[in-house]
């Protein structure tokens, strides 16, 4: 089996958020970046587990600038066999999907793994775009994946529960919590990662479909109104009369 794992970088949730260029560009100065947790903890690790159990080959792909190589090397340290970076600054979801689909088509993969979404924009757009561009089924929000030959049984999170589906390779799968258990790269992995191949390719041209107009930061929330714990009638009154919510 040939596995492609798409990894992206995202600011850590705890990062301070600011914008430059008339509020059109995210200000990345001083921001701590991490590998998107859904990609790292669940998608990549499940691909690794399948490789360990049944053999196979894992390629990591990232669309981004040279400074993304830190997270790519981390992915290789966790266990990817080789990596590809498509060289681009601040790519959109549509741009990223086209690059990955283009690479996947020429290489031919059995399973394309992504995270269910990135934790900065939460769009869940890339997995579905890739799936359409490479003409494969998509199983999104997967919290369990079993593979036997080319047949997969996948549990997918839906509103208020789960759905269990069957599908044959090739397919695209987006990972949610539960698909695997997070792995911390060990020293041996980190050393080996340094010598694993990391190929840099130039992107294909893509016509953009959307553009950022601007970002806004909401005014800080006015301070909390504290209610006496002995007087819950007062809380009920506030929720009814002031917040008008019950």
């Amino acid at each position, binding site marked *: 089996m040939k596995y492609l794992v798409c990894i992206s970088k995202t*600011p850590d*949730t705890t*990062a301070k*958020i600011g914008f430059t260029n008339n509020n059109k560009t995210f200000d990345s100065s001083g921001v701590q970046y991490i590998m998107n*947790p859904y990609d790292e903890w669940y998608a990549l690790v499940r691909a690794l587990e399948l490789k360990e159990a049944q053999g196979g080959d894992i390629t990591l792909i990232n669309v981004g600038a040279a400074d993304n190589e830190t997270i790519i090397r981390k992915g290789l340290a966790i266990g990817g066999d080789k990596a590809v970076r498509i060289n681009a600054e601040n790519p959109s*979801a*549509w741009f990223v*999907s086209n690059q990955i689909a283009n690479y996947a088509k020429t290489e031919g993969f059995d399973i394309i793994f992504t995270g269910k*979404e990135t*934790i*900065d924009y*939460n769009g*869940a*757009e*890339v*997995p*579905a*775009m890739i*799936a359409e561009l490479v003409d494969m*089924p*998509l199983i*999104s*929000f997967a919290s369990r994946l079993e593979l036997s030959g080319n047949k997969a049984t996948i549990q*997918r999170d*839906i*509103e*208020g*529960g*789960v*759905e*269990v*589906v*069957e*599908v*044959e390779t090739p*397919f695209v799968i987006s990972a949610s*919590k*539960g698909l695997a258990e997070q792995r911390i790269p060990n020293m041996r992995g980190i050393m080996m990662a340094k010598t694993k191949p990391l190929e840099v390719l130039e992107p294909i041209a893509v016509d953009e*479909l*959307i*553009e*950022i*107009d601007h*970002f806004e*930061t*909401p005014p800080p929330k006015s301070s*909390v*109104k*504290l*209610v*006496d*714990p002995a007087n*819950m*009638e007062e*809380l*009920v009154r506030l*929720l009814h009369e002031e*917040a008008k*919510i*019950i």
Partner: protein
Amino acid sequence: MSVLFLAEHQQDNYKKSAFEAATFSKKLAEKLGTTAIGVVVGKMNNAGSLGKYGADKVIHIQSNQEVSFDSQVYTEAIAAAANQSSAKVIILAHSSTGKALGGRLSAKLKAGLVSGVNALPDTDGGFKARKSVFSGKAQGIYNITSDQKILTLTGNAVKPVRSENEASVETLDVALPPARISVKEVKTVQGIVPLPEAEIVVSAGRGMKDPGNWGIIEELAATLGATTACSRPVADADWRPHHEHVGQTGIAIRPNLYFAIGISGAIQHLAGVNTSKVIVVINKDPEAPFFKAADYGVVGDLFEVVPKLNEALKAFKAAQ
């Protein structure tokens, strides 16, 4: 020209997201001087009722059996309806279904996509759609430059407006491709509103001490007609089912009213709930970070406060 929306349904009932999409599409259609058309895929005996929430017409892509969900099949169906109705904008719910379709349709139609939209787009000199980004710490406003546009709509962003209209139903025959995904089983909790749709959510965390203590949470939720949720450690410890887990690694919700009980308010938790309209925090620690994100706070022992609150609410409901 039209605004086309996918109306999700379960058997013969529309989901709440379908009514929200209908009302949202109708308002957008009025801005654009056009009509709002719903598309329904698969067996559904009640298709015209969508008119009550704003649909001018319903396109029903028929099947005498349940069409189980495969994003490729649905993409073909919606693209056919979009073609039939010359759709300028396509609206989907920001749900497990809509999220699996948005990117596919965008790629198929070369239509710009903004997902997780929380307000009507600004259509004066562009098509600017707004969504929450960076764990609710900012809003991103995107201009869709392609001719056709796709939005996925966050739950509880619009209130469905009801009227007495029935929509005319037009059947559209589409040669759908065979599904490559076969759905073997669907396991969902019955009889409660799924979390992403819930208007009131009662959520509890590690401050509950033991899974056996959840009775007071369930009673409060029952009084309010609310859905229950929990923090991540609670789900990780199997105190509560996985689908109740909200936050960065769980699901993101946007209810009108969110009760956080015995939850500290870590940023990863807030990431999933901080766009709720009103937040009430009950915590014994006055320094708990959640109070900074709260509208109303009660500093006290939840084992005393929650039953009192429940009694006060019951008295309030009885007097209504």
